């Protein structure tokens, strides 16, 4: 929550595409002429370890290089982290936005996040990922949900970036699956508040 800079914190576990999602959003924003920063928080690197990544977006060049203290938006890619770590750390309890990967209704998480009065959204990102790409990697549907909840960027610009970036690495089938996952995350997110 630094003047003129939007800050997002992504929570997940190593292997869930946390870093990729934080980068993808940043790069899609850059294509629209924004200045961006995206960086993961590195600790002991192993599959399944809790990790965080950050995205900053601004209309002006971003000079700050310290960690994100007061994020505007929290994206929780792994719901088992709610209650395990303080996902609301530094968040404005009135104005913050929290998006959680879960098949449950947002109201369920209201109870788990006492004091939080901001916008709360859930989306079954793991279910969508299994349907569309056949693997439990929920990062892309979460990105779709984030776009719907925040209107940060047009969905098309993220689609464009995803198509371009994933085509370098993956087969056409996987790219198609991810595009579908992005769209479904966007459509199926449930917003409370």
């Amino acid at each position, binding site marked *: 929550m*630094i003047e003129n800079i939007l800050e997002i914190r992504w929570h997940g576990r190593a292997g869930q595409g946390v870093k990729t999602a934080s*980068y993808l959003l*940043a*790069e899609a924003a*850059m294509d629209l002429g924004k*200045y*961006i*920063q*995206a*960086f*993961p928080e*590195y600790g002991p690197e192993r599959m399944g370890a809790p990790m965080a990544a950050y995205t900053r977006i601004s209309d002006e*060049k*971003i*000079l*700050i*290089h*310290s*960690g994100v*203290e007061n994020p505007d938006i929290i994206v929780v890619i792994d719901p088992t982290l709610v209650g395990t770590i303080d996902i609301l750390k530094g968040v404005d309890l009135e104005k913050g936005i929290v998006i959680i990967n879960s098949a449950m209704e947002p109201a369920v998480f209201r109870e788990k996040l006492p004091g939080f009065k901001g916008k709360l959204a859930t989306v079954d990102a793991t279910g969508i990922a299994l349907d569309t790409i056949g693997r439990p990697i929920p990062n892309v549907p979460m990105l779709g949900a984030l776009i719907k909840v925040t209107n940060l960027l047009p969905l098309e610009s993220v689609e464009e970036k995803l198509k371009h970036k994933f085509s370098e690495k993956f087969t056409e089938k996987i790219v198609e699956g991810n595009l579908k996952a992005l769209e479904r995350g966007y459509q199926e997110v449930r917003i409370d508040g």
Partner: protein
Amino acid sequence: MGKKIAMETNQLAAFAMAQIDPDVVAAYPITPSTEVVQEFSKYVANGEVTTEFVPVESEHSAISACLGAATAGARVMTATASQGLALMNEILHIASSARAPISVVVASRALSGPINIHGDHMDISSIRDAGWIIMVAEDAQEAYDNIIQSIPIAERAKFPIITSYDGFITSHAVEVAEVLEKEEVQKFIGPKKPDYSVFDEKLTIGVLALQDSYIEFKRKQAADYDKVIDIVKEVGKEYGDLTGRYYDTVEKYMTDDAEVIMVAMGSTAGTAKVVVDQMRAEGHKVGLLKIRLFRPVPKDDIIGVLRTADAVMIMDRAYTYGGVGGPLFEEISAAMNDLPCRPYMANYIYGLGGRDIKPSHIRQVFEDGLKAVKGCGFDQQIKWITVRE
């Protein structure tokens, strides 16, 4: 206007190296500079560069192979960090005395132990007496720009060069950077003109010089090394003419009328600019002096800025055990000795092992400075911050 791209700074460094297309790269990857070597080797495998890539079994071998290639007249680069740079130490001194214009990309990292992979300036500080040119970048853009400029700087100065950026904080962050086309880079750096070659049968390379001549070799090296400062300025201006991004040995940020000036290096400088803006808006006369050229120390440029300040706050992301503060503080204090009337000076040791330095920390440092100006100096000249007291 160049093309804007977003990459992790390590990838951007490899991209810059590929545009330079050096004759030889000999490397042994180490965190947090691993991706520089990894990405560069992809350019090699894809045939996008003409570089002879030499994978070796240690940093000592990497820099030795680089030195060998450089003495054969090749344009040579590598990348390393932390203990990797420390392991190169023996050869670093030989490379600088051999005037081998090797360019090394360093993602600055703490020195173990305890084992730590994150960013601070202990590695580049520990080799500051090796006779290398050392430049430190604030962000991805400057990292790219410094790597491109490193080639003409090193080759004109006839000294090896390190261009560093902060490990993880910068190396593993994606940021927007404006880049040149490869042709523009090639035109800017020009073809390599070897000063000498090991293949010249009339040359003896690596001479023995004992009591009767060693000190003269060193005196000459020292004198030539001092000329680096003007070369850095000259190349920084030429680069500015090409890109619109002009560089000097230091960067002044709101220092002209500042009462309190902070001196910082690397990514912290960016965060400090944000705090300067905030505090200026509140009416405080604060400013920032960013050190871009860490070695040789641009003494006159530093004094020129700091002489009019009332208090100078020197930020060191490194420490010299048993020394008088951190490396920047030691140098700048010594440089300022010439002044008839010195500002109050204090030293802040911070951020070792990647400990985050937040705007609130920087604000506190400025406030210490403002307080010192009103009263009579500091109660404590050397202070550790961002530490559990």
